[in-house]
């Protein structure tokens, strides 16, 4: 039993850190460190910088154009991005549609999309949830009827993160409304968002930001070559996508960054420092849990329900840290500011997004499988309770 990284892994960590230090645009870096969301251009530029180094798609295998990282390298790479902090490669591209196309795409689809996806020449949106299909995703109603070489798609999708930046959307549609089980009539479709009949409406969230959207589809004609996998077999693709790429789900590096900010703001407030220590202690141990599960996952295939453990504790600690950061910042954090406010002096802690980030981080226990859903998964699959 050995917790230490190999010399190669340690060297890789240093290499990643140096690369970030030397190549991340200072303004982008300041923004992420301040808890602001960078602009689309800044995010795209950073992903292209990473792509030029071969690192934009950490989970893709070498023969699909990825770096062919080991699980540990992937972990180290993400941890360094989170701690730096630097923007992650756009997850819709890199962790979601990319692996799906690699696994289920036709050669034509791979040729058409993979390179552009890695380089963010195409920005993808995820079109899964609907107003009445949240946790119960298979209840979706967006319909696609086949007409010649096209699917004609109509429906209403919601919570499309960054869809206003996006060029394409991967989405789930109901192609067989008469299927005996609701999971059986669903297909996985790629939709060009510039097509007629697509309307994107912003949703402003509790942090005052425009990050998510609704997408209305009104008789949108989607060519059949945009079907991924078989018709009516979209649920298999979905299950693959949702169980894929859980590395870094605990977001430990992001929480560490919050701890750094807390310590800068706490000064000599011993009560805050004690609470920070309580979070740090659990976080340090969660890092071990993360590595243990990573180690076990190297030796298995398919989804690992223990990812739910990482998500539950990771979210708990990240939310606790964001709450403590708000406490450390005090009343002045209540002043309304926006991500677009000018950057302040280099050494001044930016309070402007602490309250918005505390607010929006409550959603971390909702999206990607709410904490309630995760507990049910743990109870059923790890404890056998039904």
């Amino acid at each position, binding site marked *: 039993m050995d917790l230490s990284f190999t010399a190669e892994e340690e060297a890789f960590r240093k290499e990643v850190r140096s690369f970030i230090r030397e190549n991340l645009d200072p303004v982008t870096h300041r923004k992420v460190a301040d808890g602001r969301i960078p602009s689309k251009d800044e995010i795209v530029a950073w992903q292209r910088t990473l792509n030029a180094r071969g690192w934009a798609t950490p989970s893709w295998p070498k023969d699909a154009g990825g770096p062919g990282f080991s699980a540990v390298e992937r972990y180290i790479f993400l941890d360094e991005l989170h701690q730096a902090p630097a923007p992650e490669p756009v997850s819709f591209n890199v962790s979601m549609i990319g692996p799906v196309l690699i696994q289920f795409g036709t050669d034509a689809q791979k040729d058409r999309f993979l390179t552009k996806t890695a380089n963010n020449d195409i920005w993808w949106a995820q079109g899964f949830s609907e107003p009445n299909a949240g946790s119960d995703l298979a209840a979706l109603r967006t319909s696609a009827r086949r007409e010649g070489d096209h699917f004609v798609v109509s429906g209403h999708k919601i919570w499309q993160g960054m869809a206003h930046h996006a060029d394409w959307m991967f989405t789930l549609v109901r192609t067989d409304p008469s299927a005996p089980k609701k999971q059986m009539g669903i297909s996985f479709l790629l939709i060009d968002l510039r097509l007629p009949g697509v309307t994107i409406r912003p*949703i402003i969230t*509790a942090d005052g930001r425009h990050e998510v959207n609704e997408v209305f589809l009104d008789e949108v004609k989607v060519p059949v070559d945009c079907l991924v996998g078989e018709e009516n077999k979209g649920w298999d693709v979905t299950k693959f996508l949702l169980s894929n790429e859980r590395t870094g789900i605990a977001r430990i590096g992001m929480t560490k960054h919050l701890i750094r900010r807390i310590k800068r703001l706490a000064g000599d407030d011993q009560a805050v420092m004690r609470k920070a220590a309580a979070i740090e202690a659990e976080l340090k141990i969660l890092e071990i849990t993360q590595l243990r599960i990573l180690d076990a996952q190297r030796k298995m295939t398919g989804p690992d329900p223990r990812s739910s453990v990482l998500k539950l504790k990771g979210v708990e600690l990240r939310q606790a840290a964001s709450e403590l950061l708000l406490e450390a910042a*005090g009343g002045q954090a209540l*002043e*309304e500011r926006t991500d677009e406010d000018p950057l302040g002096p280099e050494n001044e802690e930016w309070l402007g997004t602490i309250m918005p980030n505390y607010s929006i981080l*409550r959603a971390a226990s*909702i999206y990607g499988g709410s904490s309630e859903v995760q507990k049910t998964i743990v109870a059923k699959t790890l404890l056998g309770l039904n």
Partner: protein
Amino acid sequence: MDFELSDDQRMLKDSVERLISDRYGLEQRLRYQSEPCGWSKAIWNDFVELGLTMLPFSEEHGGLGLGGVETMIVGEAFGRGLVVEPYLCSIVLAGEAIAQGGGEGAGDLLGPIMGGEIIAALADRAEVVTEGSTLSGSATVVLGGDTAQLFVIPEGEGAWLLPADARGLAVRPYRLHGGGGAADLSLDSVPLEDAQRLADGAVARAIECGIGFLAAEATGAMQAALDGTVEYLKTREQFGKPIGSNQALQHKAAEMLVEVEQARSAAIYAAILSNEPDAAERARGMAAVKAVIGKTGRFVAQNAVQLHGGIGVSEEHIVSHYFRRLTAIGMLLGGTDMQLKRLAELGGFTGPEDHLAA
């Protein structure tokens, strides 16, 4: 012991609640917030006409001479409506400080405040010193300071009354997360010769009234958040049944109710305490009230959002506004940890001595 409202109190409650339900929907509130000063002059005038701005002041000062319970009734309705008009800052905080510490001139000072013509604000986080006959220093997050014409600046146990356009006084106004506005003040040798001095103890008393009002406001917001959550649990369906049929969510809602009941008790306790003559008893009690309001508000706000799922963090859904206002309330006039520290320093409610020895 009696927890019933009097007939007059019930009438007040009905009329304030009607005003809020008629005039203070989420979209209306957005409109008010987009007015230049960040709130609605028309609504403010309604408050004046309804007598709300005169409510806590003595008849001698030209007020209605009503007390903590009436203020609580107003606060709870305002909390449900997420009212952004400067009632807390001008009437409850600055107004009360002037009423308590303004001596013979208090009535004259309060006139335009009660009339709604002048907005006053209390700088509860001021750090100032007198130098000769001038005042210098700063104050952060002065509630309502963005539109106030008159400031109460605590110094020592007393305070100074300064007009917003006083020489040497700079005001940096801004909006607050959760609604309302505030300002940071910077005072550079502001002359005190014309300024009015408020008597010692007035500010402490005003802040206690402010805590009482925040407790009521929080109770209204929490009750509304719970009501909305329960309604959502009953109507939102997933997997072919209302999500409220999930036992885990039922239990979470039950835990919320327990905390809302505690918040309501805290608001009632604060209302009654406002008549308590013993200053130490008031200080202890108000520290407990604010600590409990902070803790329960945090719990109820977080769980209301969680049980709403995604739409709980949408600007379009009122629960996200309750969340933010409750978060802000927890931080204003001293956060939970500060209040508990204070309560411990004051010795708490139960001493170490044997009960039978007392």
